[in-house]
Structures are given as structure tokens and as C-alpha cells.
């Protein structure tokens, strides 16, 4: 455990060495947030509400979604792909640690870094442009936090399972970035699902993506009653557990086929 905490700490230090990249990323994120926010304000214009959601709720949804995405950091896919391609996976494997716990600790380090260098600055910008993104109630806020953590668990486990591909196939090309955009679209992180056609929306509830963004955000803005929220949390927990089982199984198989490049 001490080792994994130290890994997270080292990760934060490493990120500090690359702060310049972070500032440019932050500016882009803030611009995107403002653009999407103003877009919804324009779309809603005079109308009171659509699909039971008002313009203000929609802006809250957008702002919180952007803040969430700055905290939903998952480097695990690129980390493994790079380690396999460069052969540095060898130096990870000579240590008596679990590789995925190591990569998870690195991601946690990154999240802590992002909290200070991305999330909080973005929050301040949002505060200035759109005002405070208030949750539906205090109760909803706590339920959201739980849903947010479960959402991250689902997201990370899904990514890690996907990342296992990198162990066997060497050149995956743009697979991971295609997956990234796919998840972005289908999770409701930019456009909430209630704007999707019904058949697609219904189908998407059978996939894990909506439980990454859409459902935590819906809880935040108060689309569900607290009782409904608890059911949503239950479904999230089931998805998380299911993905963990798949991941554990796939991990065992994939790590056997590790290919290491270079001397």
C-alpha cells in the first residue's frame, strides 16, 4: 500500500514537471465548457423546459459534466500500449507488484493533480460565467458523489479491460481514440440521452456507458427522486462488479501472452 501511495505521489511530481501542457489543456477545456454552455442557453432561449429539464439545469449538467471529465482520468490504455511498444513493460514486471494496481495508482495521482490544476480552475471559470452549478438538493449531492465514484469504477475497469488488447496485438493504431470518442458520445457526457431517439436511448441503457456520465449527472440535477437514485446506484454497482469479474478473467489470460519488444 505504501508503495502505491508513493507511486501516486511520484505521478503528481511528474505532472508538475509538465505544467505547461496542462495550462494549454485547461484553457481548451474552459473554452469548450463556455461554448457548450452558451450553446444550450441559445437552444433553450425562451422555452421553459424540454424533457423535464430547464435551461439552467442543462447548463449545470454541462458544467458538472466537464468538471467530472477532468477528474475521470484514465491513462491505463495508453500506459500499457506505450509500455508494450517500448518494451518498458519488462521493468514494470520485474517488480513484485500487481501491474494494474500500479497503473491505477498512477491514475489516482493524475486525478489529484487534475483536481488542483484543472477541476478547481475550471470551477472558478464556470462560477464567473454561469454562476454556481447548484445540485437539486444536499441529498442529491451526496448521492451524486457516490454515483460519481461508481461511475469512475465502471469507466476505469472498462478501459483496463480494453487495454488488455495491447498485450497481444502490437499495433492497435487509433483503436483507443475511437473508443474514447465512442464512449464520449454514448455516455451522455456532451449530449444527454433524452435528446437521442427513443430506440437508441433504450438500447444504450443496456450498455455500461450511461452509468459513467448520464446517470450521475441526472442525479445531480434532480431528474430522479432519492429512491430512484438508490436504484440507479444499485445498477451501477452491479455493472461495476460485473466488469471487475470480466476484467479479472481477461487479465489472467492476457498477461500470459505478454509480448516484450526489444532487447
Amino acid at each position, binding site marked *: 500500500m*505504501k508503495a502505491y501511495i508513493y507511486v501516486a505521489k511520484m505521478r503528481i511530481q511528474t505532472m508538475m*514537471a509538465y505544467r505547461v501542457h496542462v495550462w494549454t489543456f485547461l484553457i481548451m477545456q474552459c473554452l469548450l465548457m463556455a461554448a457548450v454552455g452558451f450553446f444550450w442557453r441559445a437552444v433553450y432561449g425562451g422555452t421553459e423546459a424540454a424533457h423535464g429539464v430547464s435551461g439552467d439545469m442543462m447548463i449545470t449538467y454541462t458544467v458538472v459534466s466537464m468538471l467530472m471529465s477532468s477528474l475521470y482520468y484514465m491513462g491505463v490504455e495508453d500506459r500499457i500500449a506505450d509500455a508494450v511498444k517500448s518494451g518498458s*513493460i519488462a521493468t514494470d514486471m*520485474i*517488480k513484485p507488484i500487481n501491474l494494474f494496481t500500479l497503473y491505477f495508482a498512477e491514475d489516482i495521482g493524475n486525478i489529484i493533480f487534475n483536481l488542483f490544476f484543472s477541476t478547481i480552475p475550471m470551477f472558478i471559470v464556470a462560477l464567473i460565467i454561469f454562476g454556481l452549478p447548484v445540485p437539486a438538493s444536499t441529498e442529491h449531492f451526496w448521492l451524486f458523489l457516490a454515483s460519481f465514484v461508481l461511475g469512475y469504477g465502471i469507466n476505469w475497469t472498462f478501459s483496463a479491460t480494453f487495454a488488455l488488447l495491447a498485450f497481444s496485438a502490437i499495433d492497435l493504431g487509433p483503436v483507443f481514440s475511437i473508443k474514447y470518442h465512442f464512449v464520449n458520445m454514448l455516455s451522455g457526457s456532451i449530449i444527454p440521452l433524452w435528446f437521442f431517439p427513443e430506440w437508441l436511448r433504450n438500447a444504450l441503457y443496456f450498455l455500461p456507458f450511461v452509468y459513467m456520465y448520464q446517470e450521475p449527472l441526472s442525479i445531480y440535477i434532480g431528474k430522479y427522486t432519492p429512491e430512484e437514485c438508490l436504484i440507479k446506484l444499485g445498477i451501477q454497482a452491479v455493472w461495476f462488479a460485473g466488469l471487475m469479474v470480466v476484467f479479472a478473467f481477461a487479465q489472467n489470460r492476457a498477461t500470459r*501472452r505478454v509480448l*516484450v519488444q526489444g532487447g
Partner: protein
Amino acid sequence: MPVIEVKHLKKQFKSVRKQKGLKGAVKGLFRPEKKIVTAVDDISFSIERGEIVGYIGPNGAGKSTTVKMMSGILRPTSGEILVNGISPVKDRKAVVKHLGVVFGQRTQLYWDLRLGESFELLKRIYDVPDEVYSENMAMMDEILDLKSIVDTPVRQLSLGQRMRGDLAAAMLHSPDVLFLDEPTIGLDVDAKHAIRRFIKEINETRKTTIILTTHDLGDIQELCKRIIIINKGVVIEDGSLDELIDRIAPYRQLVIDFYTEQHIEHPNAEIVSCEGSRTVYRFMKNEISAAALIEYIGGKAKIKDIRLEEASIDDIIRVAYSGGSTE
């Protein structure tokens, strides 16, 4: 009980051959042309505690692949490995706990951070008690001069400094087995010297079992009593250096400088070269002694200077690689 046992080890890589052009790329997508490369074919050896074994062979012989299988990074296609009685295939973590590995061509140090951070992390990973940690650091600092580099970011270290850091990183948890894959590659004389001194020291004081892969004959000469030569994934020689020399290259060379040009022949000595006043003889140890040869020649002409040369490791290895004998 041997510390390391390897039996009929084999590793094949399936690789997809890239096909040329767009047509090839499309074809490769649906029906990839698979090629099987046998990196390690059939390797067996066993190593006792405290040995330093030179594991040598030409590029592509399968050395690194063997090391990777022994450290649990790659899974063998077939065969058996036991390190400290444990199979790295079955329990990688248990094996690497007592193992140090250095890959000369890559580093386990964190590139962007000061060297000391990597050490601190390893201390936690292996759960090294504080006293052991500072004791090890002090011992290693003496030879590797770590104090002068611990506060430097790894990316700013020279190759020699980085390698010293990597060696220290591999030894921090006092492993009883150490795999060194080309630890002196690309280093200058001073750095090589420090690293050899370090390897010798830990082997003597801690009885660390060491497998050393190298192309540097100086490394072998100074460190290894035993060498295993492999080529194309099979062991072609395994034995003590002296014994190998006796067997594959049992000759010596005698270089004699006369005062004038001479052509003195002896039935048991072949003249290799004769330039100016210098003549080089080659003879078999078991046919004539050096003393007898010198005495015979000295009786025929006045000798100014002599030098006796053993067959170099270089010769041995060249002969072994080519799979023939000296004759």
C-alpha cells in the same frame, strides 16, 4: 540445491509479417501471414549459489529472451524454470521478490524525477527496513558513488551514471539472484570498471548468484569463472573458462624478439608470423612446454625479449560461435 534450474526451455514468437502496399495491408487485415520465430530452442543449465555465470552468444542468440523468461516477464512455450525453487510462470511475484534485474538497454528508473525518488519507491515496493536500506545505500555508495547523483533527475544522468543508478536499484532489496543483461553496453572504461568492481564485491560479500550477459570480453575475463555460450537458441558450450580454453583452443603463442632476423624451426611449434626480428610461434600445451621451447630457441640465437600469450577469450568465442574447432 541449485539456485537456478532451467530445463529444455523453449520460446517461440508468433509474429505477423507486414505485407507491402495497400493490397498487402488489406490482405494482412483478413488473412495475416503468420511467421514463427524460435528465439530459444532448447536450453538447459543449472547454477549454484554464489556463481557468476557469463551468458554469452552473438546478437539474436536468445540471451535476453532467456533472461526475460527467468524473470517471469515472458512465458515459455515449453520447458521448466525454477529460481530459488519457485517457477516464475506460476508465481512471478514470489520469484521477483528475491531477484534483481538490470536491462542495459532500458532503465527502471523514473525518467522525470530525481534518482532518489526511484530508490524511495523501490524501498516501499520491497518493504526494505530502514536499517537495511541505509546499510545497502552506504555499501553501494562506496563503489558506485551514488551520493553525487541521487538528486539529479534521471534524464540528466550520463549513461554511465544511469547504469550505476540501475544497478543500485536492482540491489536495494538485497536479492540473492541478479540478472544483468548487457550492463556495460556503451560505457566508458571508468564506468565499466566501477560496475565490474561492484559485481565482484556483492558476489564476494553476499554470495549473490549472478547471470551476466555481455559482449565485453573484459567483463567475462574479470568476472566469470563459468561461461555458457549459446547460439540460435541452444547451448553450445558450458564450462569453466579454463576448461573451455583447454578444450577449444589448447594452444599458446610465444612471441620472441631476436636481435636479428631469424628462422628457427621446431617440430612442435608452428611459425605463425615472422616479421623483421620478431617471430611468433604457436604450440600445443600438451606437446611442448613453453620453457622447453624457449630453451631450444635460446640455444640457437640470442633472444632480446619474449612474451607468452594464452588463446584469448575472443578466439574461444569466435570458434564456439562458428561451431567448429581451432584446426
